[in-house]
């Protein structure tokens, strides 16, 4: 996407993600950042949906860590149900989310085990994407000139590609079913937005007085970047990161659903859905329903947290 120099279309406030902090806030970050965090937390707390989202995500992560220990999934061990029903059985007291068709696995057990993989992929790929984006954005913003131009055109090009499609192809070509590779592939295509955000922060802050002052007293560039500029870029990055997590959890499920992602024999939310598809004629709706709800719940929670963070870091909102 080439940048339009003629005009910036107005964007309604609800959609603004990269809020430019006010000058007052900039100074606070540099000098006494504790206050800013306290302020942000106070604002975040008033956002009830974001608090609920935080609770949901915390529960999810706890489940992802502890769950598989309590309800281990073994590919080789196949459960012996009290009654053999090829189509699986709808939710009951023993199996709150029902049983799958075929091998009659407990759907709840699958969803719990899937949470580990799906959350791991969502958050780790986000971390990689944000890391790459921060570095590239910093380089572009700090060095400027030709380097900046080349990097930003690269971002334009990457954003012109249908990314889900590219990830799909890359997963197929380079993936081998391991979670690690999937994380790397998703991370490698999640950095563009972050790099733009970081770069714009650099451009807007680089010329500000306190950076000039820091440079004048002989502070080294590295210190300026880490002490002064990146903390300012933090809040828009966090908001963008929440969107990346949500997007990657959905995309990963889709890629695995198509069989190009994580090894089909391990339970991820996408794989559970993929296996369910062949049983549609038997009508066992509970099989795809619950992993899907798990995805929706996670993405909703992450989006709410993102909303809360955006308000919390927005200098225009009231504490």
């Amino acid at each position, binding site marked *: *996407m080439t940048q339009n120099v003629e005009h910036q279309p107005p964007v309604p406030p609800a959609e603004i993600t990269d809020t430019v902090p006010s000058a007052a806030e900039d100074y606070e970050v540099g000098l006494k950042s504790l206050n800013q965090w306290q302020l942000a937390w106070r604002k975040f707390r008033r956002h009830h949906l974001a608090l609920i989202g935080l609770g949901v995500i915390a529960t999810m992560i706890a489940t992802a860590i502890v769950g598989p220990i309590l309800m281990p999934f073994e590919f080789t061990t196949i459960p012996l149900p009290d009654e053999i029903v090829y189509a699986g059985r709808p939710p009951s007291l023993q199996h709150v989310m029902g049983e799958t068709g075929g091998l009659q696995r407990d759907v709840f057990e699958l969803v719990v085990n899937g949470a580990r993989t799906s959350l791991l992929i969502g958050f780790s790929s986000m971390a990689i994407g944000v890391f790459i984006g921060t570095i590239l954005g910093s380089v572009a913003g700090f060095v400027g000139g030709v380097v900046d131009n080349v990097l930003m*055109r690269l971002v334009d090009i990457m*954003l*012109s*590609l249908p990314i889900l499609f590219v990830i799909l192809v890359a997963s197929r070509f*380079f993936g081998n079913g391991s979670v690690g590779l999937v994380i790397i592939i998703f991370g490698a295509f999640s950095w563009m937005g972050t790099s733009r955000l970081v770069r714009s922060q650099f451009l807007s802050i680089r010329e500000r007085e306190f950076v000039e002052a820091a440079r004048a007293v002989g502070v080294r560039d590295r210190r300026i970047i880490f002490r002064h500029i990146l903390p300012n870029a933090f809040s828009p990055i966090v908001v963008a990161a929440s969107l990346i997590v949500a997007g990657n959890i959905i995309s990963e499920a889709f890629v695995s*659903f198509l069989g190009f992602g994580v090894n089909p024999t391990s339970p991820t939310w996408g794989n559970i859905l993929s296996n369910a598809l062949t049983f*549609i004629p038997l009508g066992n709706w509970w099989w795809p329903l619950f992993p899907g709800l798990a995805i929706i719940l996670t993405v909703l929670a992450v989006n709410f947290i993102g909303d809360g963070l955006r308000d919390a870091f927005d200098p225009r909102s009231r504490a």
Partner: protein
Amino acid sequence: MMKFVTRRVLQAIPVLLGVTVVVYAILLAAPGGPEAKFAQNPRITQAQKDSFRKAWGLDQPIPIQYGRWMGILNPSGEGLGVLIGPAGLPNFLPTPLSGATNGVLHGDFGYSIDSGEPVSNRIIRAALPTFILAGTALVLWIVVAIVLGVYAAIHRYSLFDQGATVFAYVGYAMPTFWLGIMLIFAFSGPGLNILPAGGMTETRISPPFGSPEYWVYFGSNTPQALGDIAKHLVLPVITLVVVNIAGDSRFVRASMLESLGQDYVRTARAKGLPARTVNFKHALRNALLPVVTNIGLEIPFLFTGAIVTETIFSWPGIGKLTIDATRDFDYPILMGVLLVTSVMVVLANLLADILYGVIDPRIKY
């Protein structure tokens, strides 16, 4: 105006070139390459492999390969002559001038490894179903998103607005393919089997869509054929539009609320205009300015969404072609599809920019 369009088109060219390089690089970096199919086949001799490599140009340095694939270089030229096309002019010029027919620039995306057909034929054949699906979805998406958003904004905080908010949040968090699966369970499962679960036509009565027999059938049974497609469209279209409607109805609502709070809306009311005129002429016209841009930028994602939807509903379009090609390592098709979709993204951005200038009199080029 003309100047602006020209400049924007010129700005788009380097990006498009970059896209081709990246597409080429991704596929080049893939393990195996086009020969991967034969790598394990003991009956293929080294001589056959070599002739395959030569036929595909795989024995050339990578820049040459790229140049040939792009149509910048003449594959039969020698030395610097590779730059010159058969008609004696630079090879990259359009076919009538250069006489060149090879490469992306001349509409030649190579041949499918799988079927041996020209990639362009496969893409064109798959494009019609995708346009039917995406076009229907687009109309529904825009209409519903605007109606929902405007109505929610006018009746802010009403029960309807709150319902629309819940729908937007959930719809936005919903994986497209999961919605598709659940819809199939709901409407094509054993319980309530009222809509087809997949395909584009009823296979028992209609020839496959797009085949010559189909068009004969279509000509003699037009109403039934259209009805058949419409029936098959219902579930995929719903699947495709829910996410977009969820996101954009919020966007429209926010834009409309902003517009409703403007001074000119108060002026319009002070003029004694009916509420309908105030809302739908004065406020909506302004509220739609950013919406048009946003929709322009999102149209390409409709096609990405179509990949997902087509897979689930076995819709014989670009999406299905892509997934099949990915599964079969059919490089030329993947490169063709990637390029075509990227060009569409760039064009959609361009269009959104130009359209924005047309509908907003304040923008001067």
